[in-house]
Each structure stands twice: as C-alpha cells, then as structure tokens.
C-alpha cells in the first residue's frame, strides 16, 4: 500500500505531451473575418488565401510538484501560446496535457477590473473570475485589502484610483489564489521597483509553500531568482531545457543578433547595433498610404525593464519638411548618453503626427561591450549611464 502511495506522489503534476498549435493567417483580412470577403470569395469560387503557421511544434516536458520553471524566449517563440493552452484559453491543435492539480493563470493582473465598480466590488468579481469561491474571498478579504494598502478607497469607484493603486489591488487579489499550479505571464513588467520587489517576494513565498509555478518573463533577474529550471523556446520548439543559469546564458547568446524582422506589419525590420561608443538604430517601414511625418520613438531600458532613456523626433522638435512617403529607412545615431557594459532592452514605436501604427510588444535585447569604462564601475550603484564630467580642483 505504501509503495502504491509513493508511486502516486511521484507522478509529475503536469505532463505536456507533443503539444502543437496551428494558426491560420489570412493575408487579406485584419484580426477578424469580414463577412463580405467570405461571401465574395465564395461567389468567385475562390478560397481565402490563408497560410498555416505553427506557433508551437511538438512541445513535451514534465513538471514535478513544487517545481518552478521559467519560460523564456524571444518574441514570437511561442511563450504566450503555450501559456494560453495550459490555461485552457485556447485548445492545442495536437497533443495533450495531463494536469494533476488545479491550474490558475495570471496572464494579466486585474483581468475584468471595471472602472465603474468600487474596489470592494472589483475584488469580488476579479477573485471569482480567477476561480475563487465567494466564501474564500470573504474569508480572505481583510488580508487582500491589507496587502493592497487601499483600504481607505474600498468604496470608491476604481476609475478614481491611480494606476499604481489599481495594480496593487489587482496583484493582491491574485496573490491569495491557492491553486496547485500557478501560471504567471510577465505580471511584474509593470509597477514601480518597490512594488515589483513586493510581488517577487510574494511569489517566492508561493513557490516555497510547495506550489508549482510556470513563469514567463523578459526580466532575467526575476527568472533567475524565482526559478530553478528553465525552458528556452525557439520558433515554437524547445531549444534548451535545463537549469535557469544555462538557459538564461543561452538566451543572452541568441539575443546578441539585435535584429528583429517582422512580417505583416508596418515595420519590416528593426536593428540596433553598437558603433564605437554609440548606438545605431535602423528601422525599415512600409505603410499602405504615404505619411507626412515618420515619428519613430524608442526607449532603452535596463534588463529589469526600467527605462533609462528614449525620445522621438516630435519631442526633440525635429522637422521633416515636405516628407511624404510610404516606405523608407530611418537611421537614428544615438551618441549620448553613454551606456555602461551590459544587456539592455529596446522598445520601438512608430507612427505619424496623429497616431501610432506600431509598437514592439516584447523588448529587443542588445549588448553593450568594450566600453572604455571607468575603473570598477558597478551599474547597480553607479547607474547604467556613464556621466561626462570635467573635474577641477581648486
């Protein structure tokens, strides 16, 4: 009998078996189908020109109870799709998953928060959406409010909250979920540094209490501190499955290309490279109609996602007289500030005078090397920007 029990507990809590997911990309339509196009094509006996795209291909791995696994990979590697399948939001095309515990997923904090509802009402609705029973929420209510620190505004509609307060409330509800398996996607990408620390601390508690965590993030520090093993996804498949250190190292190696080429978008190509001690950002765009002002914005952040510097031509009052083109290449030479050696994140967006057409969802990572730095420079203490100083003593 004892042996039998042992066998049961030895079974992995999560078995992912040959999971594949196919998306059909339509080349004519936007995000959703247009009935007219369907009808017209049917009348013309023409099939919608579609193309199959495998977001995930034959993913298999097992997770033991109590393990925490970091899932990393570059944009479009299939991380989000994998999490969506695990959370039952979208079904796999092939393969199956055996789960031996309740799964709760936090693909976003504050899902279902409504600005017209009060803080109290939002706690109940959001908690219930996340799978908590009403009684559970009631019994945990004081703790949730305590953790969020918004007790004074409990009966105020959420629309009067600051974004920081909304975030704290959202995370507080999620923090008191008690599933056996917790799936977290990039929740920590938002909020101030102090709050991120608080969230990380709470998640460490969760993983120490023996629950299983799957964690997707671009914040390598967070992945390293939270997860023992990791998975690096590449083009829909598993590239490396090993200790977090190995996986993160491989990730940084692959990210060194600093190039992102995108299809079916306004922006075709983004590259950032180091030239001497400065940076060169190259972006290729192609809009359907000519635009009068190529407004390319960029932001450089440290590896944890805190912005260091950024701008766009409108901010720096740059004029492009008589500009009217639908395609072109923009080059930005960034000569200052001088960044110290390390890995950075780049975010890019693009638009015209009036609106934005494009925005990078995930950061592009790049390295700065061989900067003749000051001796013993420590970014944690001295910051990422090397000051340009002239010293005089009198």
């Amino acid at each position: 009998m004892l042996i039998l029990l042992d066998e049961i507990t030895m079974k992995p809590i999560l078995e992912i078996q040959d999971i594949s997911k196919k998306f059909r990309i339509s080349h004519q339509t936007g995000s959703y189908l247009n009935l007219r196009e369907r009808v017209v094509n049917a009348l013309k006996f023409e099939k919608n020109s579609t193309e199959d795209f495998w977001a995930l291909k034959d993913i298999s791995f097992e997770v033991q109870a109590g393990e925490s696994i970091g899932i990393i990979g570059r944009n479009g590697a299939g991380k989000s799709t994998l999490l969506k399948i695990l959370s039952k939001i979208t079904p796999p095309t092939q393969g199956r998953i055996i789960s031996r515990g309740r799964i709760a997923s936090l693909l976003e904090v504050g899902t279902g928060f409504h600005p017209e509802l009060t803080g109290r009402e939002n706690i109940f609705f959001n908690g219930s959406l996340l799978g908590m029973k009403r009684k559970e929420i009631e019994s945990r209510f004081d703790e949730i409010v305590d953790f969020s620190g918004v007790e004074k505004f409990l009966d105020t509609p959420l629309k009067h909250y600051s974004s920081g307060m909304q975030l704290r409330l959202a995370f507080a509800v999620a923090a008191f979920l008690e599933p056996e398996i917790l799936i977290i996607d990039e929740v920590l990408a938002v909020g101030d540094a102090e709050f991120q620390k608080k969230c990380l601390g709470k998640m460490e508690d969760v993983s120490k209490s023996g629950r299983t965590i799957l964690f997707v993030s671009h914040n390598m520090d967070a992945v390293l501190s939270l997860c023992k093993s990791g998975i690096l996804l590449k083009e829909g498949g598993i590239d490396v499955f090993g200790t977090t250190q190995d996986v993160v190292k491989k990730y940084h190696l692959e990210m060194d290309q600093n190039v992102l080429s995108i299809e079916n978008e306004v922006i075709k190509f983004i590259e950032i490279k180091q030239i001497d001690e400065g940076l060169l950002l190259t972006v290729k765009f192609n809009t359907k109609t000519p635009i009068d002002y190529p407004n390319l914005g960029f932001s450089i952040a440290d590896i944890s996602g805190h912005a260091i510097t950024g701008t766009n031509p409108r901010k720096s009052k740059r004029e492009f007289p008589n500009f009217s083109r639908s395609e072109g290449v923009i080059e930005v030479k960034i000569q200052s500030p001088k960044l110290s050696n390390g890995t950075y994140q780049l975010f890019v967006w693009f638009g015209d005078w009036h609106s934005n057409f494009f925005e990078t969802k995930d950061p592009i990572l790049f390295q700065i090397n061989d900067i003749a730095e000051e001796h013993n420079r420590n970014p944690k203490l001295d910051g990422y920007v090397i000051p340009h100083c002239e010293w005089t003593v009198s």
Partner: protein
Amino acid sequence: MQKDIEYIIEPTEKKFLNFAVLWQYRELFYFFTWRDIKIKYKQTALGFLWAILQPLLMMSIFTLFFGRALNIPSQNLPYPIYVFSGLLIWNIFSTGLNNAANSMVNNASIIKKIYFPRLIVPVSSILVALFDFLMALILFISILIFYKQPVSWTIVFYWPFAMLFSVIATLGLGCWLAALNVKYRDFRYVIPFLIQVLFFLTPVLYPISLLKHPLLQYALATSPMYIAVEFFRLPLTNTLPNMDFVWISLASNIVFLLIGVIYFRRTEDFFADFA
C-alpha cells in the same frame, strides 16, 4: 496528497454541454449578472427606475398611436394593458438578445486571459434582462390593479412558462449571434435591425387575428417569441390561442435553442483566437 484532481487538455471537446463544469462555475453566473446590473445603473440619478420607465414610456407612445389613432383591436383588454403586457415580455427578448449578442465581444479582454465556460457570458447577460423584467413586472401588476383587470388563476401556470419560453428564445438566438459576432463583426449592425423586424413580426402590438390571410398567421407563429407573448396574455384575455400556432412557435423556440447552443459550443474554443 490533495483530492485527486486529474484532467486532460486536448484538441477539442466533443461534448454537447458539460453540466459538471457549468455547475462548478455556478457562482460566476451570479457574479457576471451582478456586475452587469451594477454597471448598468451606476451614475444614473434614477437608477433602477429606468427599468420601469422605459416600458412605461413605450406603452404611452404605442397607446397613443396604435390604440387611439389606429384603433387596433386588443382582445377586449384596455389597450394600455394589452400593449404593456406584450412589451414587458418582449423586452426580455429584445434587451436580452441585444446584451447576449454583444456579450462575447464586450468581454473579449476577459475571454482572452482567463478560462471559464464561455456560455456563462451570454446566459448572464440574459439574466440581466430578466432582472429588468421583474422590476417592470411590479409596475405592471400595479397597472392591473388600477384598471381593476380581472385575472384568471391560470396565471400561476402561464406566466412562469411565458418567462421560460422568452428566456429560451433569447438564449438560442443570443448564443448564435454572440458566436457569429465574434467571427464577423458585421452582426453588430444586423442585430438592432433584426430585433426591430422581429418586433413587428411578433404580435406584440396587435393580435394575430388582425391578419386576415391564414398563411400569414402561420408565418407569424414561427416567431419563437409568439408563444411567450401569447402565454403571458392568456390569463388576462382568457381566450385560448390557436393550438397549431402554439406548437409551431414552440418548435421554432426549441430549434433555435439547439442551433444556437450547438453553434456556440462548436466555436467557443476558438473565441480567444478571433476576439
């Protein structure tokens, strides 16, 4: 070791309806309905009174034009009562269908991020319409008392069934349109038009006998709401409708329910990909 929970995520479920899962998530029905009712009447000075005022104003307008000006027969009922009873039960359908058809699109941000049985969304949005109905029903009963309208005891049987059939009619078409609306946003523009057409094709403002051609009467009886309107008025008029019409409407009621729910179930797995 905790309770043995073991479940499998596979390409597509072939079950028609998984009642066990719906039961497990039963509290969400309540929370979605509760949220929608709260939001609907937030920041309105009159609040729930709107649920009563809307049919009341409609009744006045219709009484003026159809009752007084056109002198439409009303099966021996005072025309305001005739119209109000029709509007009341009709509003479950029109409000509910409108809510349900847009519900999946309106809640797309939730659907893309969290799993729960998707059927909860349209069903709850119909329950919101039922709440409005119950509020207006209080007013209707006061009107009945005011007019000293005699009411048959069969009311205890016919009214619940009228409500049930109107909910079924709403659910069938509502689920169908909700699923179609996710795929083709064209339906957003079709829905108000469809509701308006069905309003005039269902004997809400006039008795079916007003149409002289029997074929036309049969055609109108295919409206899934015909049976609900007829049943709701029966305890007041005390005239049994043509049983053929009742059966036709009931059949259409159930056919739409099956089409709607099956279509919804067949497409719900992919809502997150389309929305």
